[in-house]
Protein backbone atom coordinates (compact mmCIF):
# COMPACT_ATOMS: atom_id res chain seq x y z
CA UNK A 1 0.00 0.00 0.00
CA UNK A 2 2.91 2.31 -0.46
CA UNK A 3 2.31 4.94 -3.01
CA UNK A 4 4.37 6.50 -5.67
CA UNK A 5 5.88 9.77 -4.69
CA UNK A 6 5.80 12.50 -7.21
CA UNK A 7 8.43 14.77 -5.91
CA UNK A 8 10.61 15.38 -2.95
CA UNK A 9 10.75 18.65 -1.19
CA UNK A 10 14.04 18.87 0.54
CA UNK A 11 13.53 21.74 2.89
CA UNK A 12 15.03 23.10 6.04
CA UNK A 13 17.69 20.56 6.80
CA UNK A 14 18.99 22.11 9.95
CA UNK A 15 22.77 21.98 9.87
CA UNK A 16 24.34 19.85 12.57
CA UNK A 17 21.07 18.14 13.43
CA UNK A 18 22.12 15.01 11.57
CA UNK A 19 19.01 13.19 10.41
CA UNK A 20 16.14 15.58 9.91
CA UNK A 21 12.67 14.20 10.38
CA UNK A 22 11.09 13.21 7.12
CA UNK A 23 7.36 13.67 7.02
CA UNK A 24 5.43 11.91 4.30
CA UNK A 25 2.42 13.91 3.19
CA UNK A 26 -0.39 11.90 1.61
CA UNK A 27 -2.68 13.51 -0.95
CA UNK A 28 -5.07 12.43 -3.67
CA UNK A 29 -3.66 14.32 -6.65
CA UNK A 30 -7.02 14.52 -8.41
CA UNK A 31 -8.80 17.49 -6.88
CA UNK A 32 -7.82 20.80 -8.46
CA UNK A 33 -7.28 23.48 -7.32
CA UNK A 34 -6.47 21.84 -3.96
CA UNK A 35 -4.22 19.10 -5.27
CA UNK A 36 -3.62 17.66 -8.70
CA UNK A 37 -0.88 16.24 -10.87
CA UNK A 38 0.58 18.82 -13.23
CA UNK A 39 1.82 18.07 -16.74
CA UNK A 40 5.09 16.80 -15.32
CA UNK A 41 3.27 14.33 -13.11
CA UNK A 42 4.18 16.21 -9.91
CA UNK A 43 1.76 17.10 -7.14
CA UNK A 44 0.73 20.71 -7.63
CA UNK A 45 -1.96 23.09 -6.42
CA UNK A 46 -2.96 25.03 -3.33
CA UNK A 47 -2.09 22.25 -0.91
CA UNK A 48 1.28 21.58 -2.53
CA UNK A 49 2.36 25.17 -1.92
CA UNK A 50 0.75 25.25 1.50
CA UNK A 51 2.32 21.96 2.58
CA UNK A 52 5.80 22.96 1.42
CA UNK A 53 5.52 26.26 3.27
CA UNK A 54 4.26 24.58 6.44
CA UNK A 55 7.13 22.10 6.37
CA UNK A 56 9.60 24.95 5.95
CA UNK A 57 8.15 26.76 8.96
CA UNK A 58 8.07 23.58 11.05
CA UNK A 59 11.65 22.80 9.94
CA UNK A 60 10.75 19.40 8.60
CA UNK A 61 11.64 17.62 5.39
CA UNK A 62 8.53 16.66 3.52
CA UNK A 63 7.85 14.16 0.79
CA UNK A 64 4.68 13.95 -1.27
CA UNK A 65 2.84 10.70 -1.78
CA UNK A 66 -0.38 10.11 -3.70
CA UNK A 67 -3.01 7.66 -2.59
CA UNK A 68 -6.49 6.67 -3.65
CA UNK A 69 -9.17 8.71 -1.86
CA UNK A 70 -11.03 5.56 -0.75
CA UNK A 71 -8.14 4.21 1.27
CA UNK A 72 -6.52 7.50 2.26
CA UNK A 73 -7.47 7.27 5.95
CA UNK A 74 -6.70 3.54 6.43
CA UNK A 75 -3.25 4.06 4.91
CA UNK A 76 -2.56 6.98 7.24
CA UNK A 77 -3.59 4.93 10.25
CA UNK A 78 -1.43 1.97 9.25
CA UNK A 79 1.54 4.29 8.87
CA UNK A 80 2.23 4.44 5.14
CA UNK A 81 2.46 8.21 5.39
CA UNK A 82 2.30 10.65 8.26
CA UNK A 83 -0.31 13.23 7.34
CA UNK A 84 -3.22 13.74 4.98
CA UNK A 85 -3.40 17.05 3.18
CA UNK A 86 -6.03 16.41 0.55
CA UNK A 87 -8.89 18.89 0.74
CA UNK A 88 -10.34 16.85 3.59
CA UNK A 89 -13.14 18.56 5.50
CA UNK A 90 -13.08 18.31 9.26
CA UNK A 91 -16.06 16.21 10.39
CA UNK A 92 -17.01 14.47 13.62
CA UNK A 93 -17.10 11.12 11.85
CA UNK A 94 -13.47 11.42 10.73
CA UNK A 95 -12.41 12.87 14.11
CA UNK A 96 -13.18 9.48 15.61
CA UNK A 97 -10.37 7.86 13.61
CA UNK A 98 -7.85 10.64 13.04
CA UNK A 99 -6.96 14.01 14.57
CA UNK A 100 -7.21 17.22 12.58
CA UNK A 101 -5.21 20.42 12.78
CA UNK A 102 -7.15 23.65 12.84
CA UNK A 103 -8.73 24.42 9.49
CA UNK A 104 -6.50 26.07 6.88
CA UNK A 105 -9.50 27.17 4.85
CA UNK A 106 -12.71 28.55 6.36
CA UNK A 107 -15.77 26.30 5.97
CA UNK A 108 -16.46 26.49 2.24
CA UNK A 109 -19.81 25.99 0.55
CA UNK A 110 -20.65 22.98 -1.56
CA UNK A 111 -22.74 23.43 -4.69
CA UNK A 112 -24.74 21.49 -7.23
CA UNK A 113 -23.89 21.69 -10.93
CA UNK A 114 -26.02 20.30 -13.75
CA UNK A 115 -26.51 20.53 -17.50
CA UNK A 116 -29.87 22.33 -17.18
CA UNK A 117 -31.52 24.52 -14.54
CA UNK A 118 -34.67 22.41 -14.08
CA UNK A 119 -33.19 19.32 -12.39
CA UNK A 120 -34.81 17.91 -9.27
CA UNK A 121 -32.20 18.12 -6.51
CA UNK A 122 -34.40 16.42 -3.92
CA UNK A 123 -35.63 13.45 -5.95
CA UNK A 124 -33.19 13.15 -8.85
CA UNK A 125 -29.97 11.23 -9.29
CA UNK A 126 -27.01 13.08 -7.78
CA UNK A 127 -23.35 12.21 -8.32
CA UNK A 128 -20.79 12.62 -5.54
CA UNK A 129 -17.38 11.24 -4.68
CA UNK A 130 -17.35 8.23 -2.38
CA UNK A 131 -16.87 8.88 1.34
CA UNK A 132 -17.21 12.65 1.16
CA UNK A 133 -19.37 14.99 3.21
CA UNK A 134 -21.27 15.75 0.01
CA UNK A 135 -22.17 12.08 -0.45
CA UNK A 136 -23.54 12.03 3.10
CA UNK A 137 -25.52 15.18 2.36
CA UNK A 138 -27.17 13.65 -0.71
CA UNK A 139 -28.34 10.72 1.37
CA UNK A 140 -29.84 13.15 3.90
CA UNK A 141 -31.79 15.05 1.21
CA UNK A 142 -33.46 11.86 0.01
CA UNK A 143 -32.13 12.10 -3.54
CA UNK A 144 -30.66 9.03 -5.23
CA UNK A 145 -26.89 8.98 -4.69
CA UNK A 146 -24.46 7.59 -7.25
CA UNK A 147 -20.92 7.45 -5.95
CA UNK A 148 -17.70 7.60 -7.96
CA UNK A 149 -14.15 6.95 -6.76
CA UNK A 150 -12.67 10.17 -8.24
CA UNK A 151 -14.05 13.73 -8.46
CA UNK A 152 -13.41 13.77 -12.20
CA UNK A 153 -15.79 10.88 -12.75
CA UNK A 154 -18.63 12.67 -10.97
CA UNK A 155 -18.40 15.46 -13.55
CA UNK A 156 -18.17 12.98 -16.42
CA UNK A 157 -21.31 11.25 -15.11
CA UNK A 158 -23.33 14.45 -15.35
CA UNK A 159 -22.02 15.24 -18.82
CA UNK A 160 -22.86 11.72 -19.96
CA UNK A 161 -26.36 11.94 -18.49
CA UNK A 162 -25.84 9.18 -15.92
CA UNK A 163 -26.62 11.63 -13.14
CA UNK A 164 -28.84 14.73 -13.09
CA UNK A 165 -26.44 16.83 -11.08
CA UNK A 166 -23.13 16.67 -9.24
CA UNK A 167 -22.42 17.99 -5.76
CA UNK A 168 -18.90 18.92 -4.69
CA UNK A 169 -16.92 21.72 -3.09
CA UNK A 170 -17.82 24.87 -4.98
CA UNK A 171 -14.13 25.71 -5.44
CA UNK A 172 -13.63 22.46 -7.27
CA UNK A 173 -16.72 22.91 -9.46
CA UNK A 174 -16.06 26.53 -10.43
CA UNK A 175 -13.31 25.98 -13.02
CA UNK A 176 -15.19 22.93 -14.33
CA UNK A 177 -18.39 24.90 -14.79
CA UNK A 178 -16.51 27.77 -16.43
CA UNK A 179 -14.94 25.45 -18.98
CA UNK A 180 -18.10 23.52 -19.91
CA UNK A 181 -21.86 23.83 -20.55
CA UNK A 182 -22.69 23.05 -16.93
CA UNK A 183 -24.37 25.59 -14.69
CA UNK A 184 -24.75 25.89 -10.94
CA UNK A 185 -28.25 25.00 -9.75
CA UNK A 186 -29.94 25.52 -6.40
CA UNK A 187 -28.45 27.28 -3.43
CA UNK A 188 -24.98 26.71 -2.06
CA UNK A 189 -24.90 24.21 0.79
CA UNK A 190 -22.66 24.93 3.78
CA UNK A 191 -21.05 21.63 4.79
CA UNK A 192 -18.17 20.61 7.04
CA UNK A 193 -15.98 22.61 9.36
CA UNK A 194 -13.28 23.79 6.98
CA UNK A 195 -10.38 21.81 5.63
CA UNK A 196 -7.55 20.61 7.82
CA UNK A 197 -4.59 18.26 7.83
CA UNK A 198 -5.24 14.85 9.37
CA UNK A 199 -2.79 12.97 11.59
CA UNK A 200 -2.78 9.70 13.47
CA UNK A 201 -4.26 10.10 16.92
CA UNK A 202 -0.95 9.06 18.46
CA UNK A 203 1.02 11.74 16.59
CA UNK A 204 0.16 14.74 18.76
CA UNK A 205 3.67 16.23 18.63
CA UNK A 206 3.79 16.40 14.88
CA UNK A 207 0.25 17.70 14.69
CA UNK A 208 1.15 20.48 17.13
CA UNK A 209 4.08 21.52 14.91
CA UNK A 210 1.86 21.83 11.84
CA UNK A 211 -0.86 23.51 13.86
CA UNK A 212 1.64 26.16 14.98
CA UNK A 213 2.84 26.63 11.39
CA UNK A 214 -0.74 27.14 10.21
CA UNK A 215 -1.27 29.70 12.96
CA UNK A 216 1.83 31.60 11.92
CA UNK A 217 0.70 31.59 8.27
CA UNK A 218 -2.69 32.90 9.31
CA UNK A 219 -1.09 35.66 11.37
CA UNK A 220 1.26 37.02 8.72
CA UNK A 221 -1.37 36.84 6.00
CA UNK A 222 0.56 34.43 3.78
CA UNK A 223 -2.24 31.87 4.04
CA UNK A 224 -4.73 34.38 2.66
CA UNK A 225 -2.35 35.17 -0.20
CA UNK A 226 -2.23 31.47 -1.10
CA UNK A 227 -6.01 31.10 -0.84
CA UNK A 228 -6.49 34.03 -3.18
CA UNK A 229 -3.87 32.80 -5.59
CA UNK A 230 -5.55 29.40 -6.00
CA UNK A 231 -9.12 30.68 -5.53
CA UNK A 232 -10.08 28.10 -2.93
CA UNK A 233 -12.94 29.97 -1.32
CA UNK A 234 -13.06 32.63 1.38
CA UNK A 235 -10.09 34.07 3.20
CA UNK A 236 -9.65 34.33 6.98
Amino acid at each position, binding site marked *: *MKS*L*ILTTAALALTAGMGLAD*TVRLGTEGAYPPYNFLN*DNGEVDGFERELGDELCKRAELTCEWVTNDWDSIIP*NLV*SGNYDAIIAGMSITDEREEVVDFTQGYTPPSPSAYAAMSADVDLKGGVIAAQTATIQANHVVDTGATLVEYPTPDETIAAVKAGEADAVIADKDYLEPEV*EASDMIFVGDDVPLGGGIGMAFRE*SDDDMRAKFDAAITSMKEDGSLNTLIEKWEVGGTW
Partner: protein
Amino acid sequence: MRSAIFSYCSDPATLETFQWMSCYLTTGKHMAFYVSFGTVLLLLAITAPTALMFGFGGAMSARARFAPLSWLGRGYIAIVRGVPDIAFFLFFVIALDQGIEYLRHKVKCPDWDQPIRQGSDFIVCDIAKMPLGDSPQWIHETYGFALAVLTFAIVFGAFAANVLFGAMQAVPRAQIETAEAYGMTHRQAFWRILVPQMWTYALPGLANLWMVLIKATPLLFLLGVEDIVYWARELGGSKTAKFTAYPHPDWRMWYFFGLLVFYLAFTRVSELVLARITTRLSHGQATLGGEAQRKAS
Protein backbone atom coordinates in the same frame (compact mmCIF):
# COMPACT_ATOMS: atom_id res chain seq x y z
CA MET B 1 9.71 24.61 -15.59
CA ARG B 2 8.20 22.21 -18.05
CA SER B 3 10.87 19.86 -19.29
CA ALA B 4 9.87 19.79 -22.92
CA ILE B 5 11.45 17.37 -25.34
CA PHE B 6 10.67 19.55 -28.33
CA SER B 7 11.71 23.19 -28.21
CA TYR B 8 8.40 24.42 -29.65
CA CYS B 9 6.45 23.03 -26.70
CA SER B 10 6.84 26.12 -24.54
CA ASP B 11 3.45 27.50 -25.53
CA PRO B 12 1.17 24.62 -26.58
CA ALA B 13 -1.93 26.80 -27.01
CA THR B 14 -0.52 28.23 -30.25
CA LEU B 15 0.40 24.92 -31.86
CA GLU B 16 -1.16 23.01 -34.75
CA THR B 17 -2.79 19.67 -34.02
CA PHE B 18 0.17 17.50 -34.92
CA GLN B 19 2.74 19.51 -32.99
CA TRP B 20 0.31 19.89 -30.09
CA MET B 21 -0.07 16.11 -29.96
CA SER B 22 3.68 15.54 -30.08
CA CYS B 23 4.07 17.89 -27.10
CA TYR B 24 1.07 16.48 -25.26
CA LEU B 25 2.22 12.90 -25.61
CA THR B 26 5.68 13.66 -24.27
CA THR B 27 4.78 15.47 -21.04
CA GLY B 28 6.30 14.17 -17.82
CA LYS B 29 2.94 12.72 -16.92
CA HIS B 30 2.79 10.71 -20.13
CA MET B 31 6.33 9.50 -19.53
CA ALA B 32 5.15 8.13 -16.19
CA PHE B 33 2.33 6.40 -18.10
CA TYR B 34 4.82 4.77 -20.50
CA VAL B 35 7.05 3.71 -17.63
CA SER B 36 4.07 2.03 -15.96
CA PHE B 37 3.85 -0.38 -18.92
CA GLY B 38 7.35 -1.43 -17.97
CA THR B 39 6.25 -1.82 -14.34
CA VAL B 40 3.47 -4.19 -15.41
CA LEU B 41 5.76 -6.23 -17.65
CA LEU B 42 8.40 -6.41 -14.91
CA LEU B 43 5.77 -7.57 -12.44
CA LEU B 44 4.71 -10.35 -14.82
CA ALA B 45 8.30 -11.33 -15.54
CA ILE B 46 9.05 -11.77 -11.84
CA THR B 47 5.67 -13.04 -10.69
CA ALA B 48 5.19 -15.83 -13.24
CA PRO B 49 8.28 -17.87 -12.29
CA THR B 50 7.79 -17.13 -8.58
CA ALA B 51 4.17 -18.28 -8.74
CA LEU B 52 5.27 -21.40 -10.60
CA MET B 53 7.75 -22.13 -7.81
CA PHE B 54 5.03 -21.66 -5.18
CA GLY B 55 2.80 -23.92 -7.27
CA PHE B 56 5.43 -26.60 -7.60
CA GLY B 57 6.15 -26.51 -3.88
CA GLY B 58 2.43 -26.61 -3.10
CA ALA B 59 1.81 -29.55 -5.41
CA MET B 60 4.82 -31.48 -4.09
CA SER B 61 3.80 -31.03 -0.49
CA ALA B 62 0.15 -31.87 -1.27
CA ARG B 63 1.39 -35.20 -2.69
CA ALA B 64 3.78 -35.83 0.18
CA ARG B 65 3.49 -39.12 2.06
CA PHE B 66 4.26 -37.35 5.34
CA ALA B 67 0.74 -36.40 6.45
CA PRO B 68 1.30 -32.97 8.10
CA LEU B 69 3.22 -31.76 5.03
CA SER B 70 0.40 -32.94 2.82
CA TRP B 71 -2.16 -31.12 4.98
CA LEU B 72 -0.07 -27.97 4.69
CA GLY B 73 -0.01 -28.16 0.89
CA ARG B 74 -3.70 -28.98 0.62
CA GLY B 75 -4.59 -26.26 3.11
CA TYR B 76 -2.63 -23.64 1.15
CA ILE B 77 -4.36 -24.62 -2.09
CA ALA B 78 -7.83 -24.72 -0.56
CA ILE B 79 -7.63 -21.49 1.44
CA VAL B 80 -6.02 -19.23 -1.13
CA ARG B 81 -8.18 -20.55 -3.96
CA GLY B 82 -11.28 -19.98 -1.89
CA VAL B 83 -10.70 -16.37 -0.87
CA PRO B 84 -11.67 -13.63 -3.36
CA ASP B 85 -8.58 -11.99 -4.87
CA ILE B 86 -9.53 -8.49 -3.81
CA ALA B 87 -10.14 -9.50 -0.20
CA PHE B 88 -6.86 -11.36 -0.18
CA PHE B 89 -5.00 -8.40 -1.65
CA LEU B 90 -6.44 -5.95 0.84
CA PHE B 91 -6.09 -8.17 3.88
CA PHE B 92 -2.88 -10.03 3.21
CA VAL B 93 -0.67 -7.10 2.29
CA ILE B 94 -1.63 -5.09 5.36
CA ALA B 95 -1.27 -8.13 7.58
CA LEU B 96 2.11 -9.01 6.08
CA ASP B 97 3.40 -5.45 6.38
CA GLN B 98 2.27 -5.19 9.99
CA GLY B 99 3.57 -8.67 10.78
CA ILE B 100 7.04 -7.76 9.54
CA GLU B 101 7.02 -4.51 11.50
CA TYR B 102 5.76 -6.29 14.62
CA LEU B 103 8.61 -8.79 14.51
CA ARG B 104 11.23 -6.09 13.89
CA HIS B 105 9.72 -4.09 16.71
CA LYS B 106 10.03 -7.02 19.13
CA VAL B 107 13.68 -7.55 18.19
CA LYS B 108 14.87 -3.95 17.92
CA CYS B 109 12.90 -2.20 20.65
CA PRO B 110 12.56 -4.63 23.56
CA ASP B 111 12.25 -1.72 26.03
CA TRP B 112 9.18 -0.23 24.37
CA ASP B 113 6.41 -0.03 26.95
CA GLN B 114 3.50 1.42 25.00
CA PRO B 115 0.91 -0.79 23.35
CA ILE B 116 1.37 -1.39 19.62
CA ARG B 117 -2.31 -1.07 18.93
CA GLN B 118 -3.70 2.22 20.14
CA GLY B 119 -7.28 2.45 18.99
CA SER B 120 -7.08 2.10 15.24
CA ASP B 121 -3.41 3.09 15.09
CA PHE B 122 -0.64 0.59 14.57
CA ILE B 123 2.46 1.95 16.26
CA VAL B 124 5.93 0.48 16.30
CA CYS B 125 9.16 2.27 17.18
CA ASP B 126 10.78 4.29 14.40
CA ILE B 127 13.66 1.94 13.72
CA ALA B 128 11.27 -0.99 13.26
CA LYS B 129 9.43 0.65 10.39
CA MET B 130 9.54 -1.14 7.07
CA PRO B 131 10.91 0.64 5.17
CA LEU B 132 12.40 3.22 7.53
CA GLY B 133 10.43 6.45 7.56
CA ASP B 134 13.41 8.45 6.35
CA SER B 135 14.51 6.10 3.57
CA PRO B 136 14.40 7.51 0.05
CA GLN B 137 11.28 7.18 -2.02
CA TRP B 138 12.63 4.46 -4.31
CA ILE B 139 12.98 2.13 -1.33
CA HIS B 140 9.33 2.71 -0.42
CA GLU B 141 8.38 1.96 -4.00
CA THR B 142 10.54 -1.14 -4.27
CA TYR B 143 9.16 -2.45 -0.99
CA GLY B 144 5.59 -1.89 -2.22
CA PHE B 145 6.42 -3.60 -5.48
CA ALA B 146 8.00 -6.56 -3.69
CA LEU B 147 4.88 -6.96 -1.54
CA ALA B 148 2.82 -6.90 -4.73
CA VAL B 149 4.96 -9.60 -6.36
CA LEU B 150 4.78 -11.79 -3.26
CA THR B 151 1.00 -11.44 -3.01
CA PHE B 152 0.47 -12.20 -6.68
CA ALA B 153 2.82 -15.18 -6.42
CA ILE B 154 0.97 -16.62 -3.42
CA VAL B 155 -2.45 -16.20 -5.04
CA PHE B 156 -1.49 -17.54 -8.44
CA GLY B 157 0.81 -20.13 -6.86
CA ALA B 158 -2.21 -21.77 -5.23
CA PHE B 159 -3.95 -22.11 -8.58
CA ALA B 160 -0.75 -23.34 -10.20
CA ALA B 161 -0.34 -25.87 -7.38
CA ASN B 162 -3.76 -27.29 -8.13
CA VAL B 163 -2.96 -27.53 -11.84
CA LEU B 164 0.40 -29.19 -11.22
CA PHE B 165 -1.09 -31.56 -8.64
CA GLY B 166 -3.63 -32.70 -11.23
CA ALA B 167 -0.92 -33.01 -13.88
CA MET B 168 1.22 -35.19 -11.61
CA GLN B 169 -1.74 -37.48 -11.02
CA ALA B 170 -2.38 -37.65 -14.77
CA VAL B 171 0.96 -39.22 -15.66
CA PRO B 172 0.14 -42.91 -16.35
CA ARG B 173 0.80 -45.15 -13.37
CA ALA B 174 2.56 -47.62 -15.67
CA GLN B 175 5.39 -45.11 -16.16
CA ILE B 176 6.12 -45.03 -12.43
CA GLU B 177 5.79 -48.80 -12.15
CA THR B 178 8.36 -49.19 -14.89
CA ALA B 179 10.67 -46.78 -13.12
CA GLU B 180 10.30 -48.77 -9.91
CA ALA B 181 10.96 -51.99 -11.81
CA TYR B 182 14.25 -50.47 -12.95
CA GLY B 183 15.12 -50.00 -9.30
CA MET B 184 14.67 -46.24 -9.10
CA THR B 185 13.95 -44.79 -5.68
CA HIS B 186 10.79 -42.81 -5.07
CA ARG B 187 12.73 -39.57 -5.43
CA GLN B 188 14.44 -40.65 -8.65
CA ALA B 189 11.15 -41.74 -10.20
CA PHE B 190 9.63 -38.39 -9.27
CA TRP B 191 12.35 -36.21 -10.77
CA ARG B 192 13.32 -38.36 -13.78
CA ILE B 193 9.98 -39.82 -14.88
CA LEU B 194 7.05 -37.92 -13.36
CA VAL B 195 8.20 -34.28 -13.59
CA PRO B 196 9.39 -34.33 -17.22
CA GLN B 197 6.14 -35.94 -18.33
CA MET B 198 3.65 -33.94 -16.31
CA TRP B 199 4.24 -30.62 -18.11
CA THR B 200 2.22 -31.65 -21.13
CA TYR B 201 -0.78 -32.21 -18.85
CA ALA B 202 -0.14 -29.04 -16.87
CA LEU B 203 0.32 -26.68 -19.78
CA PRO B 204 -3.33 -25.93 -20.70
CA GLY B 205 -4.08 -25.05 -17.09
CA LEU B 206 -0.91 -23.01 -16.67
CA ALA B 207 -1.59 -21.19 -19.94
CA ASN B 208 -5.00 -20.20 -18.61
CA LEU B 209 -3.41 -18.91 -15.43
CA TRP B 210 -0.91 -16.85 -17.39
CA MET B 211 -3.73 -15.21 -19.34
CA VAL B 212 -5.63 -14.43 -16.14
CA LEU B 213 -2.45 -13.09 -14.54
CA ILE B 214 -1.86 -10.68 -17.44
CA LYS B 215 -5.31 -9.26 -16.97
CA ALA B 216 -5.11 -9.16 -13.17
CA THR B 217 -2.35 -6.55 -13.11
CA PRO B 218 -4.76 -3.61 -12.54
CA LEU B 219 -5.09 -5.04 -9.02
CA LEU B 220 -1.66 -3.45 -8.58
CA PHE B 221 -3.25 -0.12 -7.81
CA LEU B 222 -4.92 -1.65 -4.77
CA LEU B 223 -1.39 -2.13 -3.52
CA GLY B 224 -0.44 1.45 -4.24
CA VAL B 225 1.65 0.70 -7.34
CA GLU B 226 0.55 3.12 -10.03
CA ASP B 227 -0.18 0.93 -13.00
CA ILE B 228 -1.34 1.58 -16.56
CA VAL B 229 -5.03 1.67 -15.69
CA TYR B 230 -4.44 4.32 -13.01
CA TRP B 231 -2.52 6.52 -15.43
CA ALA B 232 -5.02 6.00 -18.25
CA ARG B 233 -7.79 7.17 -15.94
CA GLU B 234 -5.78 10.10 -14.62
CA LEU B 235 -4.61 11.24 -18.07
CA GLY B 236 -7.93 10.65 -19.80
CA GLY B 237 -10.06 12.64 -17.36
CA SER B 238 -11.13 16.04 -18.65
CA LYS B 239 -8.68 18.85 -17.94
CA THR B 240 -9.50 22.53 -17.69
CA ALA B 241 -7.12 25.17 -19.03
CA LYS B 242 -6.49 26.56 -15.57
CA PHE B 243 -4.41 23.65 -14.32
CA THR B 244 -2.66 22.37 -17.42
CA ALA B 245 -1.12 23.65 -20.64
CA TYR B 246 -3.01 20.90 -22.47
CA PRO B 247 -6.73 21.26 -21.75
CA HIS B 248 -8.94 18.56 -23.25
CA PRO B 249 -12.38 17.01 -22.72
CA ASP B 250 -12.98 13.51 -21.34
CA TRP B 251 -10.58 11.31 -23.33
CA ARG B 252 -10.74 8.24 -21.12
CA MET B 253 -12.30 6.23 -23.94
CA TRP B 254 -9.19 6.70 -26.10
CA TYR B 255 -6.81 5.82 -23.32
CA PHE B 256 -8.78 2.72 -22.42
CA PHE B 257 -8.90 1.82 -26.11
CA GLY B 258 -5.10 2.00 -26.07
CA LEU B 259 -5.03 -0.37 -23.09
CA LEU B 260 -7.40 -2.71 -24.92
CA VAL B 261 -5.03 -2.88 -27.87
CA PHE B 262 -2.08 -3.44 -25.53
CA TYR B 263 -3.76 -6.29 -23.67
CA LEU B 264 -5.05 -7.93 -26.84
CA ALA B 265 -1.64 -7.75 -28.50
CA PHE B 266 0.03 -9.10 -25.39
CA THR B 267 -2.36 -12.03 -24.97
CA ARG B 268 -2.07 -12.81 -28.70
CA VAL B 269 1.72 -13.00 -28.48
CA SER B 270 1.35 -15.19 -25.39
CA GLU B 271 -0.97 -17.54 -27.27
CA LEU B 272 1.54 -17.94 -30.08
CA VAL B 273 4.36 -18.70 -27.68
CA LEU B 274 2.23 -21.12 -25.66
CA ALA B 275 1.19 -22.94 -28.84
CA ARG B 276 4.88 -23.51 -29.67
CA ILE B 277 5.60 -24.79 -26.17
CA THR B 278 2.64 -27.17 -26.39
CA THR B 279 3.98 -28.61 -29.62
CA ARG B 280 7.40 -29.14 -28.07
CA LEU B 281 6.07 -30.74 -24.92
CA SER B 282 3.74 -33.12 -26.78
CA HIS B 283 6.69 -34.60 -28.61
CA GLY B 284 6.96 -38.30 -27.89
CA GLN B 285 4.12 -38.27 -25.34
CA ALA B 286 1.49 -40.97 -25.12
CA THR B 287 -1.23 -38.35 -25.64
CA LEU B 288 -3.43 -37.48 -28.61
CA GLY B 289 -1.16 -34.55 -29.47
CA GLY B 290 1.96 -36.69 -29.28
CA GLU B 291 0.32 -39.41 -31.34
CA ALA B 292 -0.67 -36.92 -34.06
CA GLN B 293 2.94 -35.69 -34.23
CA ARG B 294 4.22 -39.26 -34.56
CA LYS B 295 1.84 -40.00 -37.44
CA ALA B 296 2.68 -36.77 -39.23
CA SER B 297 6.41 -37.34 -39.22
